[in-house]
């Protein structure tokens, strides 16, 4: 009893010292808590469906950010990884009867392989050329899908996939849990030394080479990592919708991902995730006015990009927190002095 009390006290100290000091961390903690506690409050199937789909697309948007936001390899064909993940899991599940816990990782492995295949020819390309080339790949794959209707189902896609679980709540926790874990992993990657090299490659690739870093390896690594996470998202999507169709490879899918990431703020990971959690439900709830649906979406995105060119989340973060001019530690905007070095904040 006493030991439990001590642990609780310790836990409270850590929470107070590490989480409650910054509004952004409080928001992230609340986000985790609300998502994990949601089924306790409401078990509305529609709401749960929206959150599950949002989670899947959050993984996808974050994986785009990992590749294009961080290493600057502008990928306008991110639907490729999503589609490969979806189709591979669907084929493994429907044709070979592999259960979801096997088909989703194998689908992700197929997406990693695709990342390698796309990454190698794209290594020499930069900027616009890279963007245009990557855009071509999902279109090519869609052509292949239509050409082999016996295996891929052609325009109808592969339907009748197994659900991960038949229980609404278990399904919810699997999807949301996977999303939270994967996004944390992606954020951890970008926060590591590898993340610094990714950043540096975006800034100036030649200078990274001259620092003795094998940029080819790191760029391929970015393609593979991004493909892996997007592939998982694709597999999860196929299992949730119980169908893998050509819509997963559409150009609009690739561009929606880019819009989400730019809206939330690129090169942050949490930005695109937050953007999906704002924009995707918004797009669902304005279904009440179907004729204005895309218009409202476009207006919101345009307004944000007009007034917050860095993206929504970095803008909000700058409003509620400020950086100490001396030690660069972030502080609540209401503080007068830095919480670490006590320098006066301006």
């Amino acid at each position, binding site marked *: 009893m006493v030991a439990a009390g001590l642990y609780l006290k310790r836990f409270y100290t850590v929470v107070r010292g590490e989480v409650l000091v910054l509004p952004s961390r409080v928001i992230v903690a609340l986000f985790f808590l609300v998502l994990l506690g949601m089924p306790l409050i409401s078990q509305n199937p529609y709401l749960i469906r929206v959150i599950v789909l949002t989670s899947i697309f959050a993984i996808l948007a974050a994986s785009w950010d990992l590749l294009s936001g961080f290493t600057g390899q502008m990928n306008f064909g991110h639907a490729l990884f999503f589609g490969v993940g979806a189709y591979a899991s669907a084929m493994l599940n429907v044709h070979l009867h592999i259960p979801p816990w096997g088909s989703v990782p194998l689908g992700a492995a197929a997406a990693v392989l695709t990342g390698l295949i796309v990454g190698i020819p794209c290594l020499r390309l930069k900027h616009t050329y890279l963007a245009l080339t990557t855009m071509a790949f999902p279109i090519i794959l869609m052509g292949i899908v239509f050409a082999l209707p016996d295996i891929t189902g052609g325009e109808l896609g592969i339907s009748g996939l197994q659900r991960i679980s038949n229980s609404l709540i278990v399904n919810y926790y699997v999807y949301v849990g996977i999303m939270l874990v994967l996004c944390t992993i992606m954020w951890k990657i970008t926060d590591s*030394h590898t993340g610094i090299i990714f950043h*540096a490659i975006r800034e*100036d690739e030649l*200078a990274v*080479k001259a*620092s*003795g*870093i*094998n940029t*080819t390896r790191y760029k391929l690594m970015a393609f593979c990592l991004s493909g892996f996470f997007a592939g998982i998202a694709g597999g999860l999507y196929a299992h949730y919708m119980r169908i893998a169709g050509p819509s997963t490879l559409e150009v609009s899918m690739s561009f929606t991902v880019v819009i989400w990431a730019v809206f939330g703020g690129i090169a942050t990971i949490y930005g695109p995730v937050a953007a999906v959690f704002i924009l995707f439900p918004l797009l669902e709830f304005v279904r009440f006015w179907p004729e204005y649906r895309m218009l409202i979406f476009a207006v919101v995105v345009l307004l944000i990009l007009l007034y917050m060119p860095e993206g929504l989340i970095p803008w909000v973060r700058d409003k509620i927190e400020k950086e100490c001019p001396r030690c660069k530690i972030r502080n609540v905007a209401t503080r007068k002095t830095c919480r670490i070095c006590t320098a006066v904040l301006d």
Partner: protein
Amino acid sequence: MAVPFLEVEALTKSFGGLLAVNNVQFRMENKEILGLIGPNGAGKTTLLRLLTGILKPDSGSIRFQGKQLVGLKTWDIVNMGVACTFQNMRPFRRLPIIANVMVSCLSPRAMKRGEWVKVVESKAMDALEFAGISDMALEKASTLSQGDLKRLEVARAVATEPDLLLLDEPFGGLSPAETDLMAKSIRRLHKGGRFGRLHSEGPAMIIVEHKLQQLMKIVDRIIVLNFGTLLAEGKPDDVVNNPQVIEAYLGQGGGQ
């Protein structure tokens, strides 16, 4: 016979019809400081870029400690111990200064040489300390002045603990005071020793520079390039009094 430290033979590189580097050959001893001078457009920067593998030569060979460098990737060459700085500084502008140097510290060569240094950050900090900009370690690189950017370039190159350091205009755009400081750092580096967690055996250097007065005080030997060809080679005093060199810099009869 001992293997020469650096041996460049019949190196040629042309851009379209322009022969930027034409049949250049020279040798270099370990721990030597070599000045590389010449009028604008003489091919000095091109020569450095050929040495680091950023450009591929049309023909010729570069042997560094007996190993052929032609055909190797830039990062392999850097990891063999040839580091370079850029004439027009190329920092990672949106990253903090310390992260700029950490990229170098994460190269295989730097990681191998500092096994007892577990923390990459502290090694990067020592490189900044050496270059004299450690006080600004957390600022973004875009906030740096011209002189500090030059120092950042040097810090980044030194962080890989090179055996051969190629400096492209280290004094370019610096005030006289800053130039003196930079010259001091270069001499200190050449002497070798420990700079915090960094270890230097005193690398050999090739310095491209236009400020001859400063350069003369540092270098052991000078090579003069003109229109891509080797014009003269020798002790600093001999070279500046060489009539061919004077002609190349100032034109016919310019020495009078």
